[in-house]
C-alpha cells in the first residue's frame, strides 16, 4: 500500500463483512506527530482464539484461500515507523483496531487521499452500515457521517455518482487544513 488511506479502505471491509451497523473511523494527530487511525465497529466481533491469530498472514475468514494480508500489511507499515497496531474485540460487541504511525519517521507512509477512500467505502456499502469519520489535529477538527446526510437525500442512494462526488469533495475540503502536512 502506498497510503495510510488505502490501508483504511482495506481494513474497513472487515467491519462491513462482520455485519456492523455502525463503523466509526477516527484520525487523531498528536502535537508530537503521532497519527492514530482507529476503526470501531459493532459487528460480530472475534473470539479470543481468532484474535490471537488475526495478525498472521495465514489467517483469513474466507474459504477460497488460506492467506489474508490486510492486517499484516497494516501492522508492518505501522511498525516500520516505530508505531504499532492494537486490536480489541468481543464476540457480539464488535471490534476496535487502532494503528499508530510516527509521522516524523522516514518510513511513514503519507496519509493519502482520505476523501477518495471514504467515497469508495460508502459507495461499496451505500445502505448499511452507517459510517462516520472524525479527524482531529493541532490545526483543527472535522466530523462527517452518512447518517447526517442520508436524511437530506430522502431515499436517493448514497451510491449515486453525483452523491459520491459530493461526499468526496466535501471531505477533501475539510481534511486538507487539518492534515495538510502529512497528506503527501
Amino acid at each position: 500500500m502506498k497510503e495510510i488511506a488505502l490501508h483504511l479502505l482495506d481494513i474497513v471491509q472487515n467491519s462491513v463483512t462482520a455485519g456492523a451497523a455502525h463503523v466509526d473511523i477516527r484520525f487523531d494527530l498528536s502535537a508530537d506527530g503521532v497519527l492514530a487511525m482507529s476503526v470501531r465497529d459493532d459487528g460480530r466481533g472475534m473470539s479470543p482464539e481468532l484474535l490471537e491469530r488475526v495478525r498472521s498472514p495465514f489467517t483469513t475468514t474466507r474459504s477460497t484461500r488460506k492467506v489474508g494480508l490486510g492486517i499484516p500489511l497494516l501492522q508492518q507499515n505501522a511498525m516500520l515507523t516505530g508505531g504499532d497496531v492494537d486490536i480489541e474485540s468481543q464476540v457480539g460487541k464488535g471490534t476496535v483496531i487502532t494503528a499508530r504511525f510516527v509521522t516524523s519517521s522516514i518510513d511513514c507512509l503519507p496519509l493519502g487521499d482520505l476523501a477518495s477512500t471514504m467515497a469508495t467505502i460508502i459507495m461499496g456499502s451505500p445502505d448499511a452500515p452507517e459510517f462516520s469519520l472524525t479527524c482531529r489535529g493541532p490545526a483543527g477538527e472535522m466530523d462527517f457521517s452518512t447518517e447526517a446526510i442520508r436524511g437530506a437525500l430522502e431515499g436517493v442512494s448514497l451510491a449515486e455518482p453525483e452523491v459520491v462526488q459530493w461526499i468526496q469533495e466535501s471531505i477533501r475540503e475539510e481534511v486538507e487544513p487539518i492534515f495538510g502536512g502529512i497528506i503527501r
Partner: protein
Amino acid sequence: MKSLAELEAIRKATASRINLRHEDAADTTRVVIGMATCGIAAGARPVMLSFVDEINKRQLNHVTVSQTGCIGMCRLEPMVDVIVPGKEKVTYVHVKPEMVSRIVAEHIVNGRPVAEYTIGAAEN
C-alpha cells in the same frame, strides 16, 4: 462540510433519473471492480472513481458501478468486469484511470469491447 443545500439540489436532479433506472433494471450495464487487498494495493480506488466520474459526465443512467472481493488472479489487478445485458461478460485487467474513458466510450456506449485491455489479450 459542504452545504446540505447543495445535496438537496443533487437529490432533486437525480430523483427523476432514478425512477427511470428502476423501470429498466433489465437494461442495466454493470461495472464491477475488484476491491480486496490486492486490488486496492494495485490501484483500484482511482480506477473506480474514474468510472464514477466518466459515467456522471456522460449522464449514463443505465450503468451501475459496484465492488467485489478478490477473485484469485491478484497479479492481474486492478480488474474490472463489464457486464452488458445479453452479452458475454468482459474482463479488463491491469486497468489504469487513463484507460477508463476509452472503455466507457467504446464498450459501454458503443458496444465494442476494447480488446487490447481484456484478459484475453493479457494472457497471450
